[in-house]
């Protein structure tokens, strides 16, 4: 008999579902810092152990060794805490987080920090496509290069990329900022509604309705502040791109509304 709230796997013909498990309770806590080796754990047990430490034990700092590029790690962490991954993550890492400071000493796959609400994520190496998709707040720093469509549908926060970026960066972004120090691929800022993209390298082509913006004191202050916080040295010369707002048609009325006005 399943307990209330527990979901049981009743049908799994293809053998894809991960069995229900309990937190493995293998972490050692030393001076307020918890540490565990994820080498022999599954995605589910890593996340359970992480949540046990952060939510039940109230630990403020966790170090995870050997994440081995597994998918969906540290998703939905809604606490202020510090998490360090000694290794690379797979797809969907650190999604929907609100508050934590996460340091990934390796690479991340596609869709890292999707829908991130607040906090800081620093990636020491490259990131895949769709990095920071639909991000709402916080800072995401990628020290290497990123794939395509970084910050697609971005609604806030800051994405800093120290290397190159692929095509369609900032596609349909609505708010927030991106700082890309390397070259960017075709279709930069395609169909963006608002927000700002700063580029240090060459731009292969601009997307529809993405135009160069006017540099202000506020831009200089913002860039210098972010570079100072993340220890990125002195900022290089950057180009600024914003939305041209020619695709905007919020002011045009629906046919029914037009009749009322007339």
């Amino acid at each position, binding site marked *: 008999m399943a307990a209330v709230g527990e979901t049981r796997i009743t049908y799994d013909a293809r053998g894809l579902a991960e069995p229900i498990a309990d937190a493995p309770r293998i972490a050692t806590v030393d001076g307020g810092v918890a540490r565990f080796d994820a080498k022999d754990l599954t995605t589910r047990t890593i996340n359970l152990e992480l949540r046990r430490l952060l939510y039940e034990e109230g630990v403020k700092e966790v170090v995870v060794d050997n994440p081995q590029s597994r998918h969906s790690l540290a998703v939905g962490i809604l606490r202020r805490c510090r998490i360090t991954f000694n290794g*690379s993550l797979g797809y969907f890492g650190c999604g929907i987080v609100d508050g934590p400071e996460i340091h990934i000493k*390796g690479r991340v796959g*596609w869709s890292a920090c999707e829908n991130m609400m607040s906090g800081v994520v620093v990636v020491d190496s490259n990131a895949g496509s769709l990095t920071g998709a639909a991000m709402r707040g916080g800072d995401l720093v990628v020290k290497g290069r990123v794939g395509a469509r970084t910050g697609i549908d971005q609604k806030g926060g800051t994405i800093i990329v120290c290397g190159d970026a692929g095509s369609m960066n900032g596609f349909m972004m609505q708010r927030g900022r991106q700082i890309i120090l390397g070259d960017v691929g075709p279709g930069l800022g395609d169909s963006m509604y608002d927000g700002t993209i700063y580029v240090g390298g060459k731009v292969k082509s601009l997307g529809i309705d993405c135009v160069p913006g006017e540099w202000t004191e506020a831009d200089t202050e913002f860039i210098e502040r972010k570079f100072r916080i993340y220890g990125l040295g002195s900022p290089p010369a950057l180009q600024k791109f914003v939305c041209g707002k020619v695709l905007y048609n919020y002011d045009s009325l629906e046919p029914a509304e037009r009749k009322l006005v007339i």
Partner: protein
Amino acid sequence: MCGIAGIIYRDGAKHPIGVEMTRMLQSMKHRGPDSTGYALYGAPPQGEFVMRFKLADANTPRDFEFEDRLRRHRYEVESRLAALGARVHVVEEETPYAFRVGFDFDGGLKLLTDLVEDIPEAEVLSLGRSLEIVKDLGDAETVHRQYGLDDFTGTHAIGHVRMATESEVDIAGAHPYWAYPYSDVAVVHNGQLTNYFYWRRRLERAGRRFMSECDSEIIAVYLAEEMDKGSSLSDAMHRSLEELDGVFTYIAVTKDELGVAKDELAAKPLVLYESDELVALASEEIAIRQLVDHEIETYDPYEREVLVWQR
């Protein structure tokens, strides 16, 4: 969705690619549990041809005459090979319906393939001096066990786990595809091609044969057509970016090259790892980590990239 993987060793020596490819593909089972396929390159001892063919599909209805028909068709294949002047060394029964035959032959491979495929339900899965395509239903470990890939050593390999979206779940619809009638050329693909029917009609008029309704088969046949005109693998792959529409990441292999191409949207994932010893690529980094025990530096190729490596 589908998952693809490739591995090529730079030293040209033989490595246990059968076991390694299974580990890569099994780790991506969640990307496609319907069928699994391998294109493995291991040079046979005498430099003979190896043909892999099937005489029924894994899920063909097993009627009363099924076994009898398999026996007759197998005999028919062997006698047709003999009639063409092929000197058959060995015929191995991998499963009741899939066979591996090694032979010496000096004539045209197209004629030989056509004569074998003229037998009802027969399909030549691969033909070449080092290429062997193994594909069947189920996950990687199931296919590995069924076809006994434990001892398979070779220089390079590609593999595919399939989540069927556009055509049936059967061996004919499973990847990799052999580039009929080119010896030692095979392709795996993740994506959808939107101008499939255009190219299928066009290539059929040019005399190419299609064994499935899977869009990925187009890529293999297209590359074969281009190479027939004298293009190198790299040139043919570059041209395919212009001529094939849709979203795709595909890996193509020949007897000593392995190449990957991405569409102009970079819509399908691929993670690439290069070291002094080997090049490994897969839809997910987790598959590459099955081969390499330490933290590695990998990246995603960008849109419209074509990369080719030699063994």
